[in-house]
């Protein structure tokens, strides 16, 4: 392998550069990132899921340093408002609910007791949810061991700062940065592989492996290689977003909020120095101006920049790896950030790339396997996101009426059908979101099983009551004893000089 060219220097490009710089030796030739200078990044905030910690660990990044440099905050989950119906909300926490009693999942006990109306809310069994609602962050490093499987956290940060942070990391390890634009892509006539990129200064850049991080257009994977795109608009109809940062007001929430609106949904991601906001919407049901007005009418504080618009088509590239090109991030596809999976999908793409790193022969069967694994993971996340739209009772707007009635993928329909029958959650290979996640959203959006697991009837009801009461009490006690999010940030990575008026980008 002689040379890796990474096209695009956003989050995807610099994540790729950083991990490749860490893992590849000098025998692989230069790693070069071609980054167009005039494309800025907007600091509207990016929310993540717990595996991001593994990526940072693989790079050897210190978590406190990372939090400081990216204006990062702690994320315990997502609050969903108005999704199943107006005025209703639920929390999708990281980590499981409670602990398993005997051989049956705790939620089955709860489902039984729910019929007796003595159960309390299911959210009371999630440490993350209870803590998040209190604005508190349990300290996992000193926590009670018995609670460790029920607690997990991720971060919210400024993606532009994260990219910058990783750029510094990569450049310190020999990655070259070319502030250039690609004007032409040269293909090999014999097999259509990419041979070289022609840059706007006349330079011709050869490499064996090309990583397309050029964003939604996919300059290499689509522009040059014509890979094709699978459109998922029929399931995920939102096709635009408008984003704006605003000033913080009130306490720093350790969670992301997603509020369903008439033509889509609004995100709210609290950072140390401000709040990132955006409205993801469907242009069939609302104009850009109306969408921007809706967003600006629902901010915590003063907007810190002009609203910025984005267009996209939900779906994925037919292949993520085509010939000698691998697409990452938006070049690979677009899944709206409803479950904060954007960075995770980049991370998974890089994990698969390292697991299946090509040799110079680029055997097609290796690309086949890479695509099989990566596409399957992508589709399992797609199903989870579609569930949020499908499981609604809203009839107040045409978007929601459409979603309520739309046909959904068989894989998702099967999961819902199974859950409705027995309260059990089906597991597929490659599922990122597993039983606790599905339970939170299924029950959060008021899909109730017709029956609970019969095995629960073996247990003594009084004993079960006592167990559940005990679990609720332990969780409540632990959450109440935890530090407030602000205190946590101060002790774990506060930015020294907060420049809240720094409206970057």
């Amino acid at each position: 392998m002689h040379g890796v060219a990474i096209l695009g220097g956003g989050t995807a490009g610099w994540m790729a550069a950083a991990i490749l710089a860490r893992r590849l030796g000098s025998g692989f030739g230069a790693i070069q990132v071609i980054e167009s200078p005039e494309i800025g990044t907007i600091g509207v905030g990016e929310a993540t899921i717990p595996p991001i910690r593994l990526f940072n660990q693989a790079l050897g990044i210190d978590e406190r340093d990372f939090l400081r440099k990216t204006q990062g905050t702690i994320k315990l989950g997502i609050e969903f408002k108005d999704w199943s119906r107006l005025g209703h909300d639920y929390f999708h926490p990281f980590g499981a609910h409670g602990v398993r009693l005997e051989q049956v999942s705790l939620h089955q006990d709860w489902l039984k007791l729910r019929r007796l109306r003595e159960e309390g809310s299911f959210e009371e069994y999630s440490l993350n949810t209870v803590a998040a609602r209190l604005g508190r962050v349990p300290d996992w490093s000193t926590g009670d061991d018995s609670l460790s499987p029920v607690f997990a956290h991720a971060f919210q940060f400024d993606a532009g700062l994260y990219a910058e942070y990783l750029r510094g990391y990569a450049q310190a390890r020999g990655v070259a940065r070319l502030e250039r634009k690609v004007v032409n892509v040269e293909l090999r006539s014999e097999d259509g592989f990419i041979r070289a990129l022609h840059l706007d200064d006349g330079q011709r850049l050869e490499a064996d492996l090309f990583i397309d991080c050029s964003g939604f257009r996919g300059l290499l994977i689509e522009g040059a290689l014509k890979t094709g795109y699978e459109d998922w608009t029929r399931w995920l109809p939102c096709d635009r977003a408008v984003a704006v940062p605003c000033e913080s007001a009130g306490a720093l929430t350790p969670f992301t909020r997603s509020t369903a609106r008439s033509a889509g949904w609004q995100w709210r991601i609290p950072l140390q120095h401000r709040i990132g906001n955006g409205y993801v919407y469907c242009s069939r049901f609302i104009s850009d101006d109306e969408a921007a007005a809706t967003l600006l009418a629902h901010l915590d504080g003063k907007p810190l920049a002009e609203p910025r618009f984005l267009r996209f088509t939900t779906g994925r590239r037919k292949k993520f790896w085509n010939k000698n090109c691998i697409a990452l991030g938006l070049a690979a596809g677009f899944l709206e950030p409803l479950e904060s999976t954007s960075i995770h999908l980049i991370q998974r793409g890089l994990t698969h790339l390292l697991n299946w790193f090509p040799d110079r022969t680029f055997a097609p069967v290796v690309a086949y396997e890479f695509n099989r694994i990566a596409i399957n993971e992508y589709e399992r996340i797609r199903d989870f996101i579609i569930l949020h739209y499908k499981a609604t009772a809203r009839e107040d707007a045409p978007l929601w009426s459409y979603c309520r009635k739309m046909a959904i993928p068989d894989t998702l329909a099967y999961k819902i059908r199974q859950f409705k029958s027995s309260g059990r959650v089906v597991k597929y290979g490659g599922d990122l979101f597993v039983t606790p996640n599905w339970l939170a959203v299924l029950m959060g959006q008021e899909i109730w099983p017709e029956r609970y697991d019969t095995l629960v009837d073996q247990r003594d009801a009084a004993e079960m009551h006592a167990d559940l009461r005990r679990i609720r009490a332990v969780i409540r006690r632990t959450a109440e004893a935890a530090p407030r999010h602000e205190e946590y940030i101060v002790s774990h990575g506060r930015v020294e000089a907060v420049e809240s008026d720094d409206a970057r980008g």
Partner: protein
Amino acid sequence: MSSTGNRPAQSGEAPADRVHSIAIVGGGAAGWLAAATLARLLRPSFCHIRLIDSQPEEAPAFSEVALPSFHRLNHLLAINEGDLLQKTRGSFKLGAQFLNWGRVGDRYFHTFGSLGAKLDAVPFHHYWIKLQRLGEGADLDAYSTATVAAKQGRFAHPVAERRSVLSLYSYGYHFHAASLAAYLREYAQAHGVTRIDRNVVDVELGGEAGFIDALMLDDGSRIRADLYVDCTGARSPLSRQALNTGYQDWSHWLPCDRMVAVPCADAGPIAAYSESSAERFGWRRRIPLQHGVDSGYVYSSRHVSDDEAAAMLLADLPGNALAEPRLLRLSTGRPTQFWNKNCVALTGSALEPLESTGLHLVQTGITRLVTLFPVGRYSPADIEEYNRLTTIEYERIRDFLILHYKSTQRCDSRFWEHCRQMEIPDTLRIKVELFRRCGRVALLDEEHFGEDSWLALFFGQNIDPQNYDPLADVLDLNEVRTALSRMRTMIQEGVDTLPTHAQYIQEHCLAEPRRLHE
């Protein structure tokens, strides 16, 4: 959902909303394993379990073999391992030795342990391939604690300390089959299972939906249950015969459909592994037990007659035969529905025993039934999920078995010619091609046999990868040499501290000397 679905209402019974009773048919190790598991997980007041201990038409196998997954059963039933092995004339199993599979004269081990250790997040075997090409790196076996121990006839329980090479393996068991069945029967009966010592003479179906309504026994009595579990092996009188459940035949991939077996004396030290030796029309197996060996010939009845197979078996025994040979029919496929209507078929133990998956499949099958315990008396959604998962599980194991036959270089019989040339499932074909191209193992969902097992088979049957992982070149070659040499040394030094398998049995679980056919 209506509580009984389209199941006909039964007279004389209170309308019942869920499964209150289960009848298991077939009393071998499989049936009693199922009964013991259900008895442990379902309280008698919740569900009444009966087992009809019918005499099988064919005598059962002399031995049963357990994979490391059996530890879960030990844990679940709180079985004392020493007691179990003592009463079942059992021995420890580090894996299996395969002879003559790639070519006549070849030998490899498939043991239950890890192969080497990752260096810089790159799997060990890529470094090994690299050193092999330089003519270095020693034999692959030297990097597996389990294999080194097996070859030297040594055994002890793995240690908990993660940094020790003596933690890097697991083990299964070899059991005397009838003793294992008796052991599990005792457990099941002590936990409320009713044993009915009768044969099933007829299966009555009821209503339009054709569910099993009752079993007619040879004393004229009738047994009715909400759910039936068919543990009778290849014939499957409930599922396959009475319910007419379809069957997906895999005999074009897994040609061996019979086994003839005989217990015999063995004067040598007891091995901590079984042996599978490829023969002209199938393969020969040796299962080491305390006080003897179960010797069997697994063959394709299309290529050799029963008499010839028996003669071949008897011509090459390690010691005197201790009983008359027994003939067993094997199943070479799977039911199209493992759970059909109100009957679950646990057919795993009838599948080709090449990788000892019989008890394992019974165990996962019955555990899955509890996990998906029907929420109603008849619950189509639970049945659908059960069948979906079990089908995937079987197909993964099927692929692993097929590869043993497919990746032979033997041409000394029509049997092997067929195997070498047969088409194989796409899932397996891609796996093999990937390994050939880049030395990597692609694992699919629900794969029981993990990377180390596939590697043992790939390397053991001479499938040579064209390339190793390019990332294995990142580490300096001398560091690789040092690291691999250190692994070998640590493993050898670790194994040297272990007692022999015979000593270990002597100290932990020595059985009374009894004859194996008893």
